C-alpha cells in the first residue's frame, strides 16, 4: 500500500497500535528539554518516584529565560528576574540529578533548542522528536516527525520514552516553480500560512513538497517547517534528499563511516510513495511569492511588502488593524519602525545572519531604530564572528547579543516597549507577544535588515541587488542553489564541524 512520508515515520514508532478505546503508544527517539516547560514535569516524576527512563535520548539547553547580555565582571548573569534565574537553576539541578546532557552556560553548544538540535546532529531523518515547545516542527525539515507537547507529556516522555497519540490527518502543501532569488524560506512560510489560514492546519501533519521547497537550503527548510504551528499544524515534514544527507554528515551525533552510509541509504527511502493519498492537498505557485510581511496580529495576516493594509473582513481583522495602527488601504510601509529583531528558532541561523549582513554591510541602522541581532546558538555565534558578521552588525549600529530566544517570546528582559512597532524575524505577531503593547510585523532577515536601514518596513530586493559584497551572498544564492554539492561544500560545513568527535 502506498504510504506518505508521515505514515512511514509514524509506523516505525508504534509500540502498540491505536484502538477504539486507546491511542497508539508512540516511541520517541529524541526528547529536547528547556527550562520553561520542564520543571513541573520533573516534579511530577519525582512525586511518583520515577527515574528518567532514557537520559541518553534526552538533551537539554537553556534558552527562553536566559539573558542575552554576557555575565558582568563579577561573573553574575543579568537575569531579568529572580524567577528566571531560579528556573534555569532548576533545570541545571534536574539534569545533574538525572544524568541528562545539558548544554548550559559553560557549554560551547548552548543555543535555542531548535537551532542546537539539528546542528549537533541530534535530529536525524525518520526520528520522532518532541519538546515542550510548539516550534518543535522545525526538526521536520530533516524528515523527522517532530511536534510540540505540553508539560504533562514531557513527564510522560521522561518516565517512559513514549507518548499516547491519536494519528493526525495528513496534508501535502506543494510549492512548485522557481523562487525569486530574494525570496527566502520565511517568505514561503508566510505565504503558505496566509493561504492556509491561522487554524487551517489544525489536526494535520503537513508535508511540504515541490521544486520550490526542494530549492531551499536546510536552514530555509527549517524556517518553513518551524512555522507549521502558525497554521495550526503540529508538525511539518520535508522528505530527506541529498541536501539533507550532506548537511548531516560529520555532525557530532550522526553515525560515522559505514554506519553513516547505511543510515543515509535508509533516510533516502523516507519519501511519499506515488499514489499515496493525503486528507488534504494544497498547491502554491512558488514563482509568484514575493517578500512577505504581516499586517495584523495573527501569522496568517501576511501580504507582499508594499500591499496596502486590507479592508477588514470581520471583527478580528478590525481589531488587529486597530492594534497595529494601520488604516485599510494605506501602505504598511508608511509607518516608522522602532525596533528590528533578528534571531529566534525561526531565523537565528547562519544563512539568516548572512542575509541580514548582506543588506547592512556598508550601511547604517537609521538613527532612532533599535536593532537587536541574537544568534540562535553558540555555534552560529562562533561561525558568524569568524566571518566578521558581528562587525557588520556592530558597525551598522546594531546590538550583537549572546544566543537565546530573546525578543521572540520576551521573557528574558529583551522586549519591545508598549506601542512600539517592530519588524521581527520571529514567528508570532500576537498582541503583546514581544512585550506588553508591542506591535509586531513578521518578515525575513533581509527584510528586517532593510527596514532597519530605512526606518520603515522595506522590500529588501533593492538592497540585495546593490550589496557591495555580492560574492558573499551565500544565503540568497543557496536559496536558488540547485546542487547538494554547494550545500555540502566546505563553505557550508562550519557549523559544528569544529566540534566533531
Amino acid at each position: 500500500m502506498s504510504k506518505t512520508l508521515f505514515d512511514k515515520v509514524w509506523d516505525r514508532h508504534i509500540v502498540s497500535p491505536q484502538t477504539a478505546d486507546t491511542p497508539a503508544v508512540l516511541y520517541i527517539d529524541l526528547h529536547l528539554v528547556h527550562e520553561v516547560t520542564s520543571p513541573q514535569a520533573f516534579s511530577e516524576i519525582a512525586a511518583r518516584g520515577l527515574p528518567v527512563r532514557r537520559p541518553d535520548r534526552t538533551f537539554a539547553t537553556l534558552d527562553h529565560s536566559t539573558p542575552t547580555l554576557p555575565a558582568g565582571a563579577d561573573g553574575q548573569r543579568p537575569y531579568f528576574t529572580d524567577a528566571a534565574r531560579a528556573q534555569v537553576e532548576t533545570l541545571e539541578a534536574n539534569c545533574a540529578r538525572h544524568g541528562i546532557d545539558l548544554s548550559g552556560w559553560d557549554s560551547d553548544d548552548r543555543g535555542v533548542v531548535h537551532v542546537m538540535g539539528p546542528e549537533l546532529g541530534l535530529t536525524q531523518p525518520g526520528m520522532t522528536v518532541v519538546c515542550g515547545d510548539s516550534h518543535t516542527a522545525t526538526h521536520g525539515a530533516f524528515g523527522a516527525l517532530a511536534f510540540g507537547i505540553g508539560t504533562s507529556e514531557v513527564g510522560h516522555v521522561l518516565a517512559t520514552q513514549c507518548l499516547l497519540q491519536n494519528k493526525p490527518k495528513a496534508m501535502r502543501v506543494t510549492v512548485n516553480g522557481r523562487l525569486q532569488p530574494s525570496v527566502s524560506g520565511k517568505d514561503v512560510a508566510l505565504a503558505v500560512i496566509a493561504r492556509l489560514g491561522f487554524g487551517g492546519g489544525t489536526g494535520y501533519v503537513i508535508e511540504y513538497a515541490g521544486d520550490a521547497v526542494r530549492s531551499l537550503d536546510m536552514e530555509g527548510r527549517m524556517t518553513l517547517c518551524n512555522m507549521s504551528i502558525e497554521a495550526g499544524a503540529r508538525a511539518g515534514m520535508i522528505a530527506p534528499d541529498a541536501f539533507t544527507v550532506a548537511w548531516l554528515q560529520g555532525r557530532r551525533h550522526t553515525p560515522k563511516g559505514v554506519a553513516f552510509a547505511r543510515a543515509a541509504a535508509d533516510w533516502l527511502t523516507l519519501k511519499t510513495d506515488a499514489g499515496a493519498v493525503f486528507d488534504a492537498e494544497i498547491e502554491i505557485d512558488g514563482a509568484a511569492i514575493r517578500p512577505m510581511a504581516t499586517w495584523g496580529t495573527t501569522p496568517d495576516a501576511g501580504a507582499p511588502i508594499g500591499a496596502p493594509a486590507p479592508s477588514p473582513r470581520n471583527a478580528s481583522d478590525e481589531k488587529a488593524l486597530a492594534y497595529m495602527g494601520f488604516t485599510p488601504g494605506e501602505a504598511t510601509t508608511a509607518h516608522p519602525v522602532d525596533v528590528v529583531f533578528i534571531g529566534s528558532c525561526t531565523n537565528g541561523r547562519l544563512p539568516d545572519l548572512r542575509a541580514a549582513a548582506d543588506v547592512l554591510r556598508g550601511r547604517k541602522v537609521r538613527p532612532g531604530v533599535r536593532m537587536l541581532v541574537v544568534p540562535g546558538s553558540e555555534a552560529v555565534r562562533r561561525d558568524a564572528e569568524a566571518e566578521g558578521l558581528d562587525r557588520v552588525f556592530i558597525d551598522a549600529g546594531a546590538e550583537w547579543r549572546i544566543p537565546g530566544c530573546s525578543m521572540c517570546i520576551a521573557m528574558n528582559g529583551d522586549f519591545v516597549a508598549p506601542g512600539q512597532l517592530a519588524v521581527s524575524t520571529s514567528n508570532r505577531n500576537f498582541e503583546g507577544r514581544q512585550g506588553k503593547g508591542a506591535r509586531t510585523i513578521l518578515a525575513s532577515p533581509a527584510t528586517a535588515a532593510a527596514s532597519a536601514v530605512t526606518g520603515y518596513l522595506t522590500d529588501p530586493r533593492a538592497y540585495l541587488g546593490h550589496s557591495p559584497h555580492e560574492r558573499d551572498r551565500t544565503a540568497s544564492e543557496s536559496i536558488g542553489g540547485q546542487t547538494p554539492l554547494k550545500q555540502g561544500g566546505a563553505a557550508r560545513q562550519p557549523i559544528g564541524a569544529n566540534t566533531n568527535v
Partner: protein
Amino acid sequence: MSEPFKILTSQAVVLSQANIDTDQIIPARFLTTTTREGLGKAAFHDWRYEDDGSAKPEAVLNRIDPAERRILLAGPNFACGSSREHAPWALVDYGFRAVISTSIADIFTSNALKNGLLPIEVDQAVWDDLAAYPDQPVTIDLEAREIRRGAAAPVAFKVESFARQCLLDGVDPLGWLQARLPAIESYEAARRPETV
C-alpha cells in the same frame, strides 16, 4: 491528578473573539514559574489588569464570579499558538472546567484534557445558541457526551474515549503508559540500529 469530571452545570462566560492565543490566556512573562499552582491571577492578565496592576472594571472576567461561570464559550481557533500547559493551568485555577468553541488548537486540547478541563468543539449553530443564553445554566454531561440547556434538544459532542475515561476517573494517563513498559522494552529490543 485532577478532580474527576462527570457532570458540570454552570453558566458561561462568552469571549467571542477569534484566535484567542495562549499569549492572551497567559502572557509569557508569567512562565518563569517552576510550579503549576496559583496561575489563576495570570489568566487573561493583560485583558484584566492595567499597567499599575489595578483591575480593569470593564473586563468581563473581573465582573463575574468564577465559581458561578465555569464554562468558557470562546471564539474560533481558541488557544492557538504556544504549547504552554500554563494556559490550562491558569484557566483551571481561575475557575473554568470546560471550554466550548467551534475550533480548539491541538496542543491545548491535549493539555486541557490532562488537567480536568474539558475542551468541546461544537457547530457554529450550537455555539450561537449557547452564546445567546449565557446566563442560563448549561449542563455538560461527560458520561452521556452531551450538552443540555433548558428544554432545548440535547447536543451530542465528541471526546476521545481514552481521554474521557481519564477525566471521568480524574487520572493522568501516565499510570496507564507505565503499565505498557514491557511492550516498550520489547520495541526497543527489536529496533534495527540503522533505523535509529
